[in-house]
Every structure is written in C-alpha cells, then in structure tokens.
C-alpha cells in the first residue's frame, strides 16, 4: 500500500511536470503599440503570473486582418477603424478597451486612425483569469513606460503613442 502510494505520487509529479502553460499570442498593426507589454515582460510580470506572452506585429491593417486567420492569435492591438471592421467580420473578437492615442501635434482632432484599442478573441475571454492578468500586465507596462529610461531601453526612437491604462 505504501509502495502504491509512492508510485501514484511519482506519477502525479511526472504528469504535472510535463504540463506547460499555454501561450497567449498578441498581434499588433504596429510594433510600437506592443511597448507596454514588452516593458511588463521585460520586468518579469508575465513570468511571475505564469503567462507565456508572444508578441507579433504586422505592417498594416490589411496584413493584420489576413494574419488573424491564424487561430493562435487571441489579442489584437490595432486602430479603432480596423477594430470595428474586425468586429464586423467576426463575432469572435471583442473590443476591450482603448489603449493608446497617436501623438499628433499638428492635428488636434483625433480620428479613428489615431485611436488604438485592444481586442480579445472569445476563447481568451473564457479564460477569465488569463484575460485579467493580461490587462494588468498592460497597465503595469503603461506605468513602467512613464519612466523615460524604460522607454529608452525598449526603443531607441521616441514612442509615437500615448498609452492608457486599459479600462480607465
């Protein structure tokens, strides 16, 4: 009986040891939009919370929509116009919050192209805990980017966006 207990315990360790965390793939229409996530990742927020965050970016909105055929992507960072189009094409995607505005000194009125939002696929929304942690990670990254040293560390150029906390 004692030996059986040990055997079961070893099997449990083996099975749990083999299990890996499921990655969350994020795609954005601009690489700069990912900076808050990068900052949080750099400072180990996601590792600490058991989230394997993978970041991809494309050149434009059209490419973004094509690449969204890859079902691995569950988070999209894009402008409001593309976001609305995406919501119209597929009911699986949900706009969550506004995350950034394009810095434009010459043009004070902000259009759909200058406002950026975060969308989540319904499959991620069902993983409520991961979704919340992801948003927290975004917010943490936004806070980190308030430090110019962090910005400088992650991007040599000036960031063309003003990032916001998601949900505020």
């Amino acid at each position, binding site marked *: 009986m004692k030996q059986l207990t040990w055997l079961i315990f070893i099997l449990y360790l083996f099975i749990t040891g083999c299990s890996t965390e499921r990655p969350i793939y994020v795609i954005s229409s601009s690489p700069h939009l990912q900076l808050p996530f990068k900052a949080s990742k750099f400072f180990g927020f996601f590792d600490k919370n058991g989230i394997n965050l993978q970041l991809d970016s494309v050149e434009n909105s059209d490419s973004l929509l*094509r690449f969204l*055929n890859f079902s691995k992507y569950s988070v999209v960072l894009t402008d409001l116009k593309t976001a609305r189009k995406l919501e119209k*094409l597929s009911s699986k995607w949900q706009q969550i919050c506004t995350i950034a505005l394009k810095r434009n000194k010459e043009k004070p009125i902000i259009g759909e192209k200058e406002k950026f939002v975060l969308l989540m696929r319904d499959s991620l929304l069902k993983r409520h805990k991961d979704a919340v942690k992801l948003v927290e990670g975004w917010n943490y990254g936004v806070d980190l980017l308030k430090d110019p040293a962090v910005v400088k560390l992650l991007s040599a150029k000036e960031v063309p966006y003003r990032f916001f906390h998601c949900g505020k």
Partner: protein
Amino acid sequence: MRIDKYWLLSAITLVVSVLIGVGTYLISYQFFKDELLRNSVKNAENYIEVTAVSVGSKKKSRQLIEILERAPYIEKVYMTAPKERSKFLIEKELLFPDGKEKVFVLLNKNLIVERSSESAQKVSLIIFVVTLILTGFILIAVRNFYLKPLWKIRREIGKISKGELSKLPEGRTDDEFNRIRSSINQMIDTIRRKTEREDVISQFIYLLTIGKGFNGEFVSLMRKVLNITDCDGVIIGVKEPKSKNIQIRLIPKNENEEPLILNKAIEKLQGIEPYLLELQREVETTKVSILSTLEKNLGIKYIFGIPLTVMSETVGFIIFFKKETEPVKEEVKHFIRNIARSIAISVEIKNLINSLEEKLKREKELTEKIVKSLVRGIEIRDSYTKGHSERVAFFSKRIAEAMGLKENEVKAIYIAGLLHDIGKIGIPDSILLKPGKLSDDEYEIIKFHPLLSYELLKHIDILKDSLPGIKYHHERWDGSGYPEGLKGQEIPLQARILAVADSFDAMTSDRIYRAGIPKTQAIAELRKLAGKHYDPEVVENALYILLNEEPPPPEDFISSEFLNVVEERRLDYYLRDSLTGVFNRNALELAYKIARERFKEPMAFTVDIKELRNINVKEGWEKGDQILKKMVELLQTKLKDAIIVRYSGDNFLIFFPQREAVETAVREIEKELGIKLTFHQIENFKDIEALKVELTTLEFES
C-alpha cells in the same frame, strides 16, 4: 514434466500477455484514431490558416480551395455547408481585408482509419512482445530466485528424511531463503529435542520396568536429563514397599562425582522432602533456608521438586536443583513433570510386578506342596511307593529334557511322575500292603489305579497337562498294557516316558519279599523290552540318565519318625496276630523271606494245640487265649530268633534251624501248660508256594 503451479502461472502469463496485446490493440486503435483525427483537424486548420494568410483575399477563394484539396488528409473542400455532418468535417471562417469567407473541409476518413489501425497493430504487437518478454523474465526470475532455492531446500529436506543430512546448510546472506532454512533448522532442533526427551522418558520406563532399577544406566540417563534441563543435579527418593524407609539417590551432573545413595526412615526426612511426600505438591523455590543440611552443603540455590504420584498414591519424590537462582523454563518444567510421571509409573509397575511375582511364587509353592501332599498321601498308604514317585518324576523329567521337550512339557511330565500312582489311594490295604505276589483278581484291582489317579485329578486345572501321563503310564508299546491297551504312538509321549522311568524304579527298588535288581540289570531289561513294552526312542534317551544320574533324596515332608511309627502300626495291624504278637497268615511270605535271610539252613515246623476248641468250649475263650499267648511266650523264650507264624486259630509255623531244640521246647511247653501239642517238620519248603501247599495239606489232614 510435472504440471505444478509454476507451469500454471506460465500458462496464465501467456494468456494474460495475449489479452494485454489484444486489449492494447483495441485501446490504441481507438486512441490513434482519435489522435490522428485530432491531429488531422489541427493540421488541416493550420493548413487552412496558412493558406488563407498566403492567399490573402476573398476574391482568391477558388485558388484557396485548390490549394487545400491538394493536402493528403483533406478529401474535399466546400464553400457551402454540405448536408452530412460528421466529426471529419471542419468548418472554418476566414478573414480577409475584403470580407470574410466560410469553408467546409472534409477530412480523408479512410486514410485516418487505416493509419490508426496500422499504428495500433504495431503498438499492440510491440506491447505484446514486450509484455511477453518482461513476464518471461519475471517467470525466469521467479524460477531462479524463488523456485530453485525452494527446490533445493526440498531436496535437502528429503536428504534429512533419509538421514543423509542432519540439518539444512545455512549461508551467510540474510535473504528469505536463509531465514526459511534457519526456521526449518530451528524446527528440526525442536523436534529432535522433543524426540530426545521422549526417548529419555521411554528409556526411563524401559529401564525401571525391566527390573534394572536405578542402576548405572539410570544414572547415565539422568545425567543426560540434567544436561537437557541445565540443572546441576537431581535427588530421587523412592519409598520402599512394605517399609517405612525411603531410598534416596543424589545424582550430580558432573560425571566425576559419584552418585550418593542413602536409606532413610521417612519420618527422619528434612527440608522440602517430607513436604513433597505429604502434601503431594510441586515446589519451586530459591529459599535456601528451607533446605536440609545436605542440600545446603551441596550449594543448592534453586530447586524444582515434584512428588512421584500414581493414582493418588505417592511413591516418592524427585528434586531437580541448580547452584544458581535462575529458574528452569516452563518447557523444561513440563519435561521434568513427564519424567517424574514416568518414573512414578515405572516404580509402581515394578512394585506391582514384584508383588505379582511374589504371589505367583507363593502359588507355585502352594501347588508343589499340594502335589507333594498328594504324593505323601499314597506314600503313607503304600510304604513301597515312598520316594518312588519323586524318583520316577526325576527320571521322567531328565528323559524329557534329553529328548528336547519344551519347558512346560517337561514340567507337566515331572508332575505326572509325582502323581502317577495317586490312584492307589483307592486300592485296599490287603492288596497294597500284601508282601507277596498278587493273585490275578488282586492284580485286576491294582490295574484300576491309573484310572483312579486320572479321575481323582481331572478336575484340577493346573494338573490338566499331566493327565495323559498319569492315565496311560501303564500302557505298553505292543498294546499289552492297561487301561485302554493303546499301542505305539497312540500312547501319549508323556506316558511312554513315565512307563520307562516307573519300570526302572520298580525293578531297582527293594520290596518286602525281594531285593531290587542292580541298575545295569534293569537297564538290560529295558533294552530287551524296548520296542515291545517301551518306546525304543525313549529307552535310548533314558539309558544314560538312568545309569549315571541319581535322584535327589526325597524331602522329609512328614516327620519320618512319626511315619515309621504309623507304618509299623499299620504293618503290625496287617501282618501280626493281635493276640500273640507273632506274624499272622498275611505275613507268611514275609516270614519265609526273613527265615531264609536269618538262617543259613532254616527248617520249618508246624505246632498245633490239640483240642483247643474243647478248652474254649469248656473253660471259655479267655482260657484258650491265655494258652495261646503263653505258648507263644514260651516258644519265643526257648527258641530265640525263631520266626513264628500263627497261620490259623491253633496252628503255628516255626522257622528255626535246629529240630531238636524245637522238639524239646514243644515237649517242655506241653508239660508247663498241661496241653497236648502236635509237632511236625515240613520237609518240602523250597519256595513259598511249596510251603503253602504243605501247610494246606496239613491243615486239611488235621
């Protein structure tokens, strides 16, 4: 090859391996089918996604379908939903910048099933082979590591049973088989100890019951017990039967120390010994203060004493002692109790045997005395038989021994010899005591005596074996004997032996009217009559004994002086004239024999009183008797040593060697008594028969 559990296990293992193989096939087939479907779906989805990304426009749907349908696991791609739905059908919504498109991809079901089956077969075969190999290894391991050592143990146990091995060899490792060997060896030791103890107990019983008592062997055995029990010595007290004493033996364990034997009065016992005898209880103590001086001097520190009790009677005690205070184990106590019980029973049995032997001895003596009393009975009646019966018994016994008869047969013959003439009790004195030859009628009466003997003794159980000899000892080999005229082997051997011994003693013994013949002559007679009267084989065996051996003198069972007086009185009564005291007519032959022996040339005379009848009539019987008495007195005075026989009322026969002396005496008596006497010399008396004829003639003439 024997079909044992191992082979049964092997067969079960093979069956289980096959079942595992089949089970593995079924399970893995299902698993692979699901897994392949899942992978196909996933691959198809990925492929669709990649293709969709690379096509990049809704307008290029046709191109998209063509690309997708080239994949091997995709059977068909639909742009509209087909009617039939299945798990092999994938529905995918594709996003393009110019709109969205829905595609329905049907996977290649046959391919998935076929591959699943192939994979399942391979896996199940591998699992089966692996299981078989592994179980085979397990079975070989079981055989080598468990069964072989067990078989070896079994073989070695067999050798122990045959006596080729005393114990199982034990290795140095502490594995389970060595522990089993160790346990079996312990069991063997226990059984041996038990057997040894049982042997000791049975040896005690044997030693004590066969009458060896508490001898050297007993001491050795008791020392063995002391070694087994780890005691330093033992004190054994056994009550002496019919006595108030007890015999005490102290046996020390050390063989260099001699056992001590004491004989004590029971009332003078000290220490715990009287307690054991009186209260009949076990005593186990380390209290030195209650021990006797002797026990204290021995340095005893611990004792375990048990009374020797049989059927609530205490026959003694046994005390095992140690010179240290450590008590004996309970197992040892049990052993000691058994020994005590065995010794007690043995002592009691020995006492009973002794008592029985004594009783048997007394009964044997009583039987012998009864037999001898019977013999004396006939000896009292017939003086001739005095010592005859014992001599015949002696010779018969010796002849029987020489012929190799069994002990009980020899004993029966001896008793038959003693009692063979007992029937003579029933023969009248006139025949028995007759000093001369018997008439035919008398002889016919004498012939009854074997039957009388038989009838007299036939109801006595202890004499039953001797009856054939008693009844038929006068039978003769040629059938001329009596009572039944048996012949040869018809005559019981006992009787044939008795006949030889009886005849020999009759021939060699003196009789009143003749002397016994010498042994050699008697033996010659026996040899002559062997095959006629006597069994030749018996005669042959008897000759040496009869010639060379002398029977022991007969015991004086009755005072010989008293017997002589009785014998004399009886003879007087029978042979002498009660009035005159001289021989009567019955003793004629005896008187003749004496005269022949006493005188060199004897002469015989008759003297008759004339007219004694007239005197009796005229002067009375008393006068007549006086004359008769006086005349005899005068004859005896005047003719010293003369042998006088009153052979009828007034007729006397005188044996004397001088005629003149007799004649003178007769004339003088005539004068003295005033009577007339007739004197006549008998010329012809060459033998007794001639004398009788002469006397009869004279009697008739007068």
